[in-house]
């Protein structure tokens, strides 16, 4: 599972699915996410992400995906 070390995670937000409720932004322990100009969630400080999974689990619209950078690169 998620090792709490920074810089290893990739955070993807699908803006079309995001409704801008702000739960992910509010409760992110490392303040990785913030509102963009349209009021939706955007990834501001991806390197700070510790892959706690809070945003992903609490997004009511399934609009955030957090993956490990490495495995992704390998796969592609």
């Amino acid at each position, binding site marked *: 599972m998620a090792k709490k070390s920074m810089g290893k995670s990739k955070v993807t937000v699908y803006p079309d699915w995001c409704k801008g409720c702000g739960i992910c932004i509010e409760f992110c322990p490392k303040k990785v996410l913030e509102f963009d100009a349209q009021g939706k969630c955007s990834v501001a400080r991806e390197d700070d992400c510790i892959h706690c999974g809070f945003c992903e689990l609490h997004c009511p619209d399934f609009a955030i995906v957090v*993956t490990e950078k490495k495995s992704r690169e390998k796969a592609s």
Partner: protein
Amino acid sequence: MNITGNEIIHQYLRHNKKFPHVLCAGCGHGIVLGSLIRSVHQLGLPKDDVVIVAGIGCSGRLAVYVDFNTVHTTHGRALTFATGIKMANPKLNVICIMGDGDALSIGGNHMIHAARRNIGITALILNNNIYGMTGGQSSPATPQGSVSMTAPFGQLEESFDTVQLACGAGANFVARGTVFHVHKLEKLMVKAIERPGFNMLEVITPCHTQYGRKNKYKNPVEMYRWLKSNAMERERFEALDEDKRGDKFPIGVFVERDEPGLEERYHELKARFAAGRNG
């Protein structure tokens, strides 16, 4: 395949449905659906064996988005349809999604009797304290004193304690979780799905649009903060002096039994006759 989190969810959503879903920004129902999908995934249940039976209201809309066998029924009656499906085919995992108005008001009687007869159904009661889809009228779970469209001067009536109701009615498994405590919720949900008999899981899931705004929660986030600070493990809550409980409410498991479900008892009865026929 090493997939996690929402990538799992995406595999279970219906690809021919339009997303995002119809629910409001910040609505906890989506989180419940996510937890449900992860629980089913974790238990390794084939999609074909899972039946979602939903009632009417915001919670009822969840069924359409997920790629199981899904039945969107009438208001308050989801459990009755689910009972029929389970009795007709006990091999299926029948999961009922209901709202608080659905399960406790119009469907209160069905709820009591499904628990009493211990039919093998997982009942998820998504309690948002209000009738959301229809515009914010009072439900039996609307807290005393709070404002709704049909209680503009504050709700006079006491609200239902869903957990106590299910315990009293004889459910096999009774638990409460919240959409803020997702890991815990998932654990409860896995239990509620895999246990025999009637398993009731109440999920506190905020409705900002119809409940929060009228009751001094400025945005959805505030409602989640409220959940975070008021939900308390059952053991800790019970240890607390009553005068110190205030707004706090217990979460966790309240009843955990392994009584056979009605469909199992019926199967035993049939087996007796079958033995008679053959022997």
